[in-house]
């Protein structure tokens, strides 16, 4: 009997697709659930999934989506427009991470089902990325959920460890162990059918490996068939050299950023920011430390996304220039003499390396940087107010949905101040106006222009330091076939995979 596929990527804390939205949760979303739309391919294409088509009213407020026929949930019951309405209302009522994209524009009562195959959304303001955000929402089976409801929690406690989906795989609840083990079995009646994959995998066991070093070793030994998609660049060569394993390298949409708190001196001074921007050793970091397995990204949006200005020149690593800017800033009274704190996520080695390298170079322009190890919840917990937000911090902005709104829109519009994405506290009325307009316009080419405009302004102000766009690196055993990557979900869709003998 063939050894099941062992998936070594991280599992989300909860299986409830409406409760979290992070990179690991996409694995659940893509395999156990279906959404109305789905991103596939690279560059990502938004393709109708449970939806057949959509229409939008002239004013951009009313969206109607027609559902595909003959979709069944895992329990065999057919999916109707009411189920979709239930799912959206549940999402909005729970008001957790994946709802964030919708709550500003959509009220629960404004989702309705005029007929069994049509779902109608009436937005409170026009919202261009509406469709782009659709894949975030998993359609759940209300019948299963209401049966398992407790204290009118919409089945939240139950769903955290069970599933109510229609996706290509169903889970085995009995053997599920949170963050440790998830066993999946193929759902042969999936609406897409299995015609495009003659040898689909019947059994998939997800076994996350916590430690990076263990993860790589486990792959090399064949204990797992896939690592996460952030293999340390130093390990790539080794995994490729091994006869049993390979590395899938795919350009993604995930921007590595060093944030600066623009409200805190010295970063309220543009020269100070520019000084920092020129003091980061981009080629050293990208080419030597990361071995060229990343792509220099000059602005907040990933290079491979639309809406970037033509021929944008990235900041160069130029200490002379940096010194010049620093001198100017000092002359203007910016307190560059104080020790500047940079918060890193200590479990993510790359943030630490970048900070250490930066620290060494900044010393040469007379700036002292102090590295503060921290964690994601600690940092995001502190970004609610400018006073508590760190001077600097390091992180990535991943592709949650494919629209500039996901990057520049939510990062540099001052209406998002208080969220971690907008934690540089950048404020520019011109940019705010451009972004607001781009958010509501339904004309793609106009939006592209507006975003390009905004990007130019932002880059000129240098509120943050954008370093690179990620190439996802996933270690795979060679028996894994049919791996297809899309920036949303990082190639975690199992439907297309098969196992060589």
């Amino acid at each position, binding site marked *: 009997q063939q050894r099941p596929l062992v998936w070594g990527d991280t599992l989300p804390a909860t299986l409830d697709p409406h409760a979290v939205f992070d990179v690991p949760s996409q694995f659940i979303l893509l395999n156990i659930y279906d959404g109305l739309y789905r991103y596939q391919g690279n560059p990502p294409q938004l393709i109708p999934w449970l939806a057949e088509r959509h229409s939008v009213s002239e004013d951009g407020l009313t969206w109607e989506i027609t559902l595909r026929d003959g979709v069944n949930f895992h329990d065999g019951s057919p999916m109707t427009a009411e189920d979709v309405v239930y799912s959206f209302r549940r999402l909005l009522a729970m008001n957790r991470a994946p709802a964030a994209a919708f709550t500003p524009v959509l009220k629960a009562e404004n989702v309705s089902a005029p007929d069994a195959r049509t779902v109608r959304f009436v937005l409170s303001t026009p919202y261009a990325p509406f469709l782009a955000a659709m894949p975030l929402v998993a359609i759940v089976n209300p019948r299963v959920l209401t049966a398992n409801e407790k204290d009118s929690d919409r089945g939240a406690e139950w769903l955290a460890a069970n599933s109510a989906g229609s996706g290509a795989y169903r889970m085995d609840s009995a053997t599920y162990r949170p963050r440790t083990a998830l066993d999946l079995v193929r759902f042969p009646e999936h609406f897409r059918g299995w015609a495009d994959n003659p040898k689909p995998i019947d059994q998939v066991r997800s076994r996350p490996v916590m430690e990076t*070093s263990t993860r790589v070793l486990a792959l090399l030994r064949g204990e797992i068939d896939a690592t996460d998609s952030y293999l340390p660049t130093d390990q790539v060569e080794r995994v490729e050299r091994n006869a049993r394993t390979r590395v899938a390298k795919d350009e993604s949409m995930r921007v590595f950023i060093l944030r600066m708190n623009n409200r805190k001196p010295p970063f309220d001074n543009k020269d100070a920011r520019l000084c920092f921007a020129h003091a980061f050793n981009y080629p050293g970091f990208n080419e030597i430390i990361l071995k060229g397995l990343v792509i220099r990204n000059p602005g907040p949006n990933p290079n491979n996304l639309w809406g970037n200005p033509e021929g944008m020149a990235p900041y160069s690593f130029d200490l002379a220039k940096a010194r010049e800017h620093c001198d100017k800033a000092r002359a203007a009274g910016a307190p560059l003499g104080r020790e500047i704190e940079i918060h890193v996520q200590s479990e993510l080695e790359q943030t630490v390396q970048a900070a250490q390298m930066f*620290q*060494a170079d900044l010393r040469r322009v007379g700036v002292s940087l102090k590295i503060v190890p921290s964690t994601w919840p600690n940092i995001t917990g502190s970004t609610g107010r400018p006073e508590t937000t760190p001077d600097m911090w390091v992180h990535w902005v991943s592709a949650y949905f494919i629209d500039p709104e996901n990057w520049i829109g939510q990062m540099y519009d001052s209406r998002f101040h208080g969220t971690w994405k907008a934690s540089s506290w950048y404020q520019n009325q011109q940019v705010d106006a451009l972004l607001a307009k781009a958010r509501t316009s339904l004309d793609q080419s106009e939006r592209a222009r507006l975003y390009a405009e905004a990007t130019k302004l932002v880059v000129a102000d240098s509120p943050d330091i954008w370093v690179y766009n990620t190439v996802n690196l996933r270690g795979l055993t060679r028996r894994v076939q049919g791996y297809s990557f899309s920036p949303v979900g990082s190639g975690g869709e199992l439907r297309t995979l098969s196992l060589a003998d």
Partner: protein
Amino acid sequence: MTALRHLLRDPVAALGLALVLFAIVVALFAPWLAPYPEDAFESRLLQRLKPPSAEFPFGTDNLGRDILSRVILGTRSAVVVAVSVVLAAMLIGVPVGLWAGWREGWVSETLMRVTDVFLAVPQLILALALGQLMAPGLTTAMVALALTYWPFFARTVHAETRRLRGALFVDALAGIGASTPRILLLHVLPNAAPAILVRATIGMGFTILTAAILGFLGVGAAPPSPDWGLAVAEARQHLPEAWWFPTFPGLAILLLVLGFNLLGDGLRDVADPRLRRGR
């Protein structure tokens, strides 16, 4: 002095003493001993992950820094951490133990119950939680370690005080009218000193190790400090290719902790009344 002679007669304890003294000397003169003393902060990307060679006897790390220099520079923080944590823990634990051991009744009971509470918390988890509580970093780690280690002193001193409180010489002192502080400070404390000393040396070993684990888990020393535990943690990503990267800091931890523990072991034997007794 006789104690020292006793200690040196025991080869294992002598080895411990030698290791500790060596570490202290290295710590004192670290910047002069390290071939590249500035390597605590430099990064030399073109030399990253070089295996040991004449130029870099222990090889270089992921930022191209000389590991030998960093191991030498790291000695200082290891010794400082060990000493200050143990001192801080002593400052809390010894008075608590003395007082609780001397007094009867609810004050003493309460103190010992509080000690039990701290003993029941897994040290590492408390340290991790504290690391989150305050800004993570070496100071936090040190505070956390001191907070988790004092109960051991309290227990040791408590037991010693209880034993000594019943000793005839303490009774005799009370008989000639000595005050409680006098008895505690001038008589009980010195008599408990060997036990405290043994506890302290073992505690130093323990502290270095736990600080290293904290560094490893990312709540200890902050980069770019040449902390040994941190170095092993950073090295994980480069294994098994760059075997030298975790090995030398790991060995440094091993040797210093070994030194402290051997010394403590030897002291235990020397402080043992059985060996001291006899006319």
